[in-house]
């Protein structure tokens, strides 16, 4: 990585340089002022940078070198499933017939795209054990909200307006309660027991006539399978509520346990996690939602239908919650996920979960002597460690994470879930080799030793990155959210 500060693209700008190639205007020119009301033609051009093409490429190449991706090195960020992003997916998504088609073209001219969407839906239905799937939501949180809106529509259609509460475990992703709020619900938290699972007694206590749904990730964010899932399903269903599956951790149970068979009524998937999206530096993702029969009428519209050999969009859906996104979802990401599923097949997907789970258990057992293991049982695709022991020696989990940067690794998810002290959540995925896992384990063991022998090395980490620890307080107290030309400031 380059140590030197990379100037902002605006600082590289020089008047008179260009980086574009437009065909000169080939229709008769007209006075631009005559084409808009007075005062509506911009007087001062926006200050976009003026840079020639090579310098643009060098700028972004320099930036890319200051970024760590899965292709750069191990990235065991828990709950994010940072697996390999297959290159063939990228090629397929760029086929002109997929990348350069307009969503409002006549259906007759996009039958191939509709066929792909339809077949992807069929594959996801089988993988999740649900009855129907919509590809419209753009990401996981968007899928959560979509699912909750459907649950709300279901209850309201039954004349049931008192179901205002969504139950969420204390170990849940932050998006769960936030999505519940956006869908107009209040959130109630249900506690975890000392086994790291939802406390059934507490669940019975909070469930009631006002329960709209329970949102659950299974395996949960501690990487543990909620083995009382059937009891939980019946508690919720008997109370008249619905069971919502957060698919963030589906990578653990492909072909092993399907949400539909566990009693879930609604499921969202994160195609950018389990199905190799890729993550794109924070998106775009794709968050399809699957539902059981009784929720099908409420799916977002349009619905993709197949009549004989022809595909169509059906907008005549009187009970639909409406649109959740313009058009039909993040099609480009769906193309990648479809390519991946077709590359793996049924045996491949089963192996994905088996190897992901074995990798996680292997790491957990090898690291257990060196860190606190809050839940000593088989994990699924991820596990949590606690840095309690290290904290007593004055080293925080944040320090350990920063020290890992010196070894060329992206650290695990830290301080989440909230119910584990000094938490580190580690998810290796199935695409990592044993050699990679061993090297990471060795680094973690070395750091654990450093904590005992020379804690300051860890406390002051990172030592080798292009930049040191950044002052986040300053960033929040005196927000600078855009570049402003120096001269302008001095005036």
């Amino acid at each position, binding site marked *: 990585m380059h140590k030197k500060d990379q100037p902002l693209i605006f600082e590289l700008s020089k008047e008179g340089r260009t*980086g*574009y190639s*437009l065909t000169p205007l080939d*229709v008769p020119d*007209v006075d631009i002022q005559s084409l808009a*009301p007075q*005062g509506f033609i911009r*007087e001062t051009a926006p200050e976009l*940078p*003026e840079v020639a093409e090579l310098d643009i*490429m060098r700028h972004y190449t320099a*930036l*890319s070198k*200051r970024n760590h*991706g899965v292709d750069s090195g191990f990235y065991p960020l828990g709950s994010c499933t940072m697996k390999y*992003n297959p290159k063939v997916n990228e090629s397929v998504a760029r*086929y*002109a*017939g*997929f990348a*350069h088609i307009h969503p409002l*073209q*006549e259906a007759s001219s996009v039958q191939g*795209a509709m*066929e792909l969407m339809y077949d992807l839906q069929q594959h996801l239905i089988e993988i999740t054990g649900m009855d129907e799937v919509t590809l419209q939501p*753009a*990401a996981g*949180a968007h899928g*959560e909200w979509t699912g909750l*809106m459907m649950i709300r529509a279901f209850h309201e259609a039954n004349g049931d307006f008192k179901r205002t509460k969504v139950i969420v475990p204390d170990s849940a*992703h*932050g*998006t769960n309660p936030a999505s519940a709020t956006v869908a107009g619900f209040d*959130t109630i938290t249900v506690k975890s027991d000392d086994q790291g699972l939802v406390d059934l007694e507490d669940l019975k206590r909070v469930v009631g006539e006002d329960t709209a749904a329970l949102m659950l990730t299974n395996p949960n964010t501690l990487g543990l399978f909620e083995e009382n899932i059937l009891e939980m399903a019946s508690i919720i269903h008997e109370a008249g509520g619905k069971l919502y599956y957060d698919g963030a951790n589906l990578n653990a149970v492909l072909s092993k*346990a399907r949400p539909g068979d566990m009693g879930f009524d609604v499921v969202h998937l994160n195609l*950018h996690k389990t199905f190799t999206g890729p*993550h*794109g*530096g*924070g*998106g*775009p993702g794709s968050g399809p939602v699957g539902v059981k029969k009784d929720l099908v009428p409420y799916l977002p519209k349009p619905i993709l239908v197949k009549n004989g050999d022809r595909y169509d969009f059906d907008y005549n859906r009187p009970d639909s919650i409406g649109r959740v*996104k*313009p058009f*039909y979802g993040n*099609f480009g990401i769906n193309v990648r996920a479809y*390519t991946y599923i077709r590359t793996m*097949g049924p045996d491949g997907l089963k*192996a994905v979960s088996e190897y992901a789970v074995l*990798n996680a*258990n*292997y790491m957990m*057992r090898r690291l257990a002597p060196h860190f606190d293991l809050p839940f000593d*049982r088989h994990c699924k695709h991820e596990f949590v460690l606690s840095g309690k022991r290290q904290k007593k020696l004055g080293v925080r989990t944040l320090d350990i994470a920063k020290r890992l940067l010196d070894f060329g690794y*992206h650290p695990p998810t830290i301080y989440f879930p909230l119910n584990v002290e000094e938490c580190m959540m580690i998810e290796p995925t199935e*695409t990592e*080799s044993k050699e990679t896992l061993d090297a990471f384990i060795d680094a973690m063991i070395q750091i654990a030793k450093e904590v005992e022998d020379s804690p300051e090395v860890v406390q002051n980490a990172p030592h080798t990155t292009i*930049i*040191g620890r950044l002052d986040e307080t300053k960033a929040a107290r005196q927000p600078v*959210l855009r570049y402003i030309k120096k001269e302008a400031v001095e005036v």
Partner: protein
Amino acid sequence: MNHRYLPMTDQDQKEMLQAVGVENINDLFSDIPEKVRFQGDLKIKPAKSETALTRELLNMAAKNADTKQYISFLGAGVYDHYSPAIVDHVISRSEFYTAYTPYQPEISQGELQAIFEYQTMICELTGMEVANSSMYDGGTSFAEAAMLSAGQTRRKKVLVSEAVNPESRAVLKTYAAGQHIEVVTVPQKNGVTDLEKLKEMLTDEVAAVMVQYPNFFGQIERLDEIEAITHTEKAMFVVSSNPLSLGALTPPGQFGADIVVGDAQPFGLPQAFGGPHCGYFAVTKKLMRKVPGRLVGETTDDGGQRGYVLTLQAREQHIRRDKATSNICSNQALNALAASVAMTALGKRGIEEIARQNFKKAHYAKQQLTSAGIQLAEEGYTFNEFVIKLSRPVKEINEALLQKGIIAGYDLGRDYENRENQMLVAVTEQRTKEDIDTFVKELIQYA
């Protein structure tokens, strides 16, 4: 099993099982109750080799009429624009596309700096003070603007112009239902928001007045007049805007907009059958702490060196949970990067030139069509889209023109009862004079 994405060998597996202390992998799944354990094999298509699969998918793609081969006059929110080749090369650098949210700033400076630059460019185009790091798309961004307005004003009603993209209005309606926000439509008159009606409908219960600029019919709304009306009742002034048009048009920020949203798809993002695109969200400084989604800010490290971090995170779901301003987590970061590269390539001069070409080419097409005897649905100033009246169903004409290698305009009868047989025509800088002349010649046969 042997698969190119799965490096585990039999030997690895043996050693790892031993280290874990179990006999076989299935033992690790023993915590899944028997009753819910999936038995057998998933009934999905068997795996295909890379060659066989790409052949199949190429054939599937070939069934679609793409705009590399067809001449497109279809817009309605998604456009065929010039995309500099450099864009795809930059976003294909896997340090960008295989990374996730930049939670560890020391090894994510590239992404963070690129987004900081993107935020700056969106501010420059819109004339606003603060822009976030992206939203899913223009439609959800529009809906989030209504929610922000309702939260900020503590009012539960928004007025939305009928001349706003119907897809965006549909998304807004769904979000509003969740938040118990009432959405009232302000009718359009002659293709623009009816300002007399707006005045009548505006009360001190209205959280926001929401318009589009240029609007769905391509017309340039009088933002100056709408702003004056809106702010008399202290409602938020929300403008949805095609950012490429702002290379030529006076930016909404200059007309006193409080929130400007839209989609950056015109900047280097393929149409991709409707997504992924890239919503943008820009506000005044006053609303900075209410913005949904991620924000990148500048700061310094322990040695005083300049760097970038995710900031003001107290607004967000992972901190605030059920009190967050929005539930958004994953956004469209890679597409924001793509849009930045396209905006950079265009630069200060290119953005003006491309926007003006859109204006002028659409104007030319409009003139050619009218001189050929085709009527405009309404007079008025338009950017790169306008509405024509035809004597037959648009769908019929579109199917016929497809045979001629043309993807014609949007059928407004789908969304507007009084606009049957009206076509929304988009003419971008990509269309040559010859393309336009061909379109006119072919269309006239069906007019």
